[in-house]
């Protein structure tokens, strides 16, 4: 993006420098594995639109951690980007107004932007007893979700609660907490699970949608493949210790202090799909659970996070420890060929024959003496 182009956008971006803005777009593009040129493309899409893309953000049964992760990253201007790139028309935590005023804003936005807005749902919907365990403005949350989703361009379920019910859905699940994809059967609900999810996974998905007008590639659980295509175990920074059989046996022991693999402490890395080890959480080196010395508890994976006890060992199904280590060097050079062996055999034969003949003659001269 040229500097003069940026100047015209400066108004919209308020305090964000051009450098920070381009850096942000670059990180987003890179984390999705898109070419470098996608960064500026995303920047243009986000800033050139006549109106900032409207976003309606609903909160169900949750802790607002997903909102927190978007608002409190260490990256200095990310919160500005979130709030200045999109038109956040309704968000219960961030609304300036309250009560009927807020609900009216929701109604108005839905009417004005029908079929254009992005619906983000944070938190699960309780279905038991007519959904009475989560009421907003006198209406069950589940009804609000259904009504809002009907006119949305895209629906995103942020966090594990919205994706598959999260911790409220753990047994005995008294409220009948259910994930949004289950509530909106028949609609594609992009899931960004995690407790909290990585903000970049969310922002990348939204910017991709704005730039290219379509959703990124999704897996069978509608999770973006760029973020949830691989097991944590596959890219873990401690993987070499796993392969070498070096494990921390308990917190604070010698192995734990040496940074050995946390598998025996109950790490769910081998059964959890997420890109945590690849992109970390904002600050860089070490800023993710395993990096701080705590086993992964599988927050992004349904039936793992909040279901399997924290220190129960995961079953390594897909990737088992290597019986033999891959060679660090590849075979080079040429070995014995049939021709070479033949020639060598021939030479040896002639030499042995000649030696035998000489020995025979030597014997005769001995006998002759």
């Amino acid at each position, binding site marked *: 993006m040229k500097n003069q182009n940026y100047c015209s956008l400066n108004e919209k971006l308020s305090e964000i420098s051009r450098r920070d803005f381009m850096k942000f777009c670059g990180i987003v593009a890179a984390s999705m594995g898109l070419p470098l040129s996608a960064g500026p493309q995303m920047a243009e899409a986000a800033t050139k639109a006549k109106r900032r893309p409207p976003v309606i953000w609903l909160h169900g049964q949750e802790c607002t951690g997903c909102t927190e992760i978007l608002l409190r990253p260490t990256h200095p201007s990310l919160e500005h980007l979130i709030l200045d790139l999109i038109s956040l028309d309704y968000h219960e935590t961030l609304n300036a107004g309250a009560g009927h005023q807020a609900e009216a804003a929701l109604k108005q936005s839905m009417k004005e932007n029908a079929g254009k807005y992005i619906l983000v749902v944070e938190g699960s919907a309780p279905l038991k007893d007519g959904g009475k365990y989560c009421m907003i403005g006198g209406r069950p949350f589940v009804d609000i979700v259904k009504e809002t989703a009907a006119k949305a361009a895209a629906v995103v379920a942020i966090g594990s609660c919205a994706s598959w019910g999260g911790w409220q859905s753990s047994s005995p699940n008294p409220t009948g907490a259910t994930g949004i994809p289950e509530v909106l059967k028949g609609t594609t609900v992009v899931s960004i699970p995690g407790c909290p999810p990585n903000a970049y996974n969310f922002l990348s998905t939204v910017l991709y949608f704005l730039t290219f007008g379509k959703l990124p590639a999704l897996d069978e659980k509608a999770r973006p493949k760029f973020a949830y295509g691989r097991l944590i175990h596959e890219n873990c920074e401690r993987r070499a210790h796993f392969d070498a059989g070096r494990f921390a046996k308990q917190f604070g022991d010698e192995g734990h202090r040496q940074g050995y693999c946390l598998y025996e402490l109950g790490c769910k890395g081998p059964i959890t799909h997420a890109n945590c080890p690849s992109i970390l959480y904002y600050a860089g080196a070490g800023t993710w659970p395993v990096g701080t010395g705590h086993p992964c508890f599988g927050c992004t994976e349904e039936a793992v996070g909040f279901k399997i006890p924290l220190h129960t060992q995961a079953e390594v199904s897909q990737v088992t420890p290597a019986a033999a280590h891959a060679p660090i060097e590849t*075979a080079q*050079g040429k070995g014995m*060929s049939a*021709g070479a062996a033949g020639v060598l055999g021939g030479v040896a034969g002639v030499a042995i024959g000649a030696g035998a003949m000489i*020995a025979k*003659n030597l*014997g005769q001269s001995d006998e002759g003496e």
Partner: protein
Amino acid sequence: MKEEQPLGGRLFTPTFLFCLLFFIIALFLLAKRFMYGLGAVTNMSDGYPWGLWIAFDVVVGTAFGCGGYAMALLIYVFNKGEYHPLIRPALMTSLFGYSLAGLAVFIDVGRYWQMYNIFLPWYINPNSVLLEVALCIGAYVVVLWIEFTPAFLQKMGADSAKKSLEKIMFIFIALGILLPTMHQSSLGTMMVVAGSKLSPLWWTPWLPLLFLISCIFMGFAIVIFEASATSTRYKIADESHMLSKLSGIFPWMIGIYLLVRFADVAVRGHLGLAFKGDLMGNMFLLENLLLLVPMCILFMPASRNNARVLFFSAISIILAGTLYRFNCYLIGFNPGGGWTYFPAAGEILITVGIVSLEIMAFLWFVKRLPIYHRA
């Protein structure tokens, strides 16, 4: 004492023609090597920048050529003039061994057209072992040809020239003892530089000493082998008593060598590697067994008088020395990086061609030049 005489006889014997055939094959492959480069005929690589040609033609070839050196040591340094009849054939094998080693280096060096730079003093790197070997071998080839010149002069009947040359021959004899002492030990030094790339079964700071001792007993073994082989084909003066007496040196020399060899490996704590049952361990055992057996056999005077036993003992010692050099330069050497090496057919055939040339030259020399004392 009678003078040496040409043995005479037909030159183009079946043996000679057989060798000629292989030499022609080698010439064809050499043309390929010089037209298309080393990669066209060899398996040499970035991991193994030297192969069969250096290991056999040069390192083993010059050890085969140590007959002259070993005999000169015995005759001139230890003053055993009784062995003098053996010196000229020994010198001849040295001449061939070293000249062809020089030729092999020329074939082996990738940019052979730059080779003359070795001899330009202003390019000299005085810290290079390889340079020392190159200059030393180069000088020794010249010395060998000078030492051998009397045979040519005798053939041409230039008696006065021969006489004046023989007056200053002591200089070349002295050089002919000094130079191999230097470069044969340096051949060992070269692998000292290889450090951990060489298996601890062979790597030792004592490599130069082991190379020096082994080249001397290989030289004696070659003299016995060659004398035994020629005596069965040609009517030459009986040398068997000299050979028997000469072979009395072996048990002592080999004994000292094996003592140093095993003590060194044991002191460095690597003797266990010999019994691992892998290629390197087995090669180590085979190499030393090939010395231990003839040493024990030749310890008995009776077996030293048996021409056949002596012949096989000499072969065993030659094989042991050959294997030791192959082990040091190729088999025990692992450059890392996953490299493997086995000589290509073309590579082997060129070596075979060079050996054939050696045999042809030998046949021509003994039949046309005064080398041996006739019976």
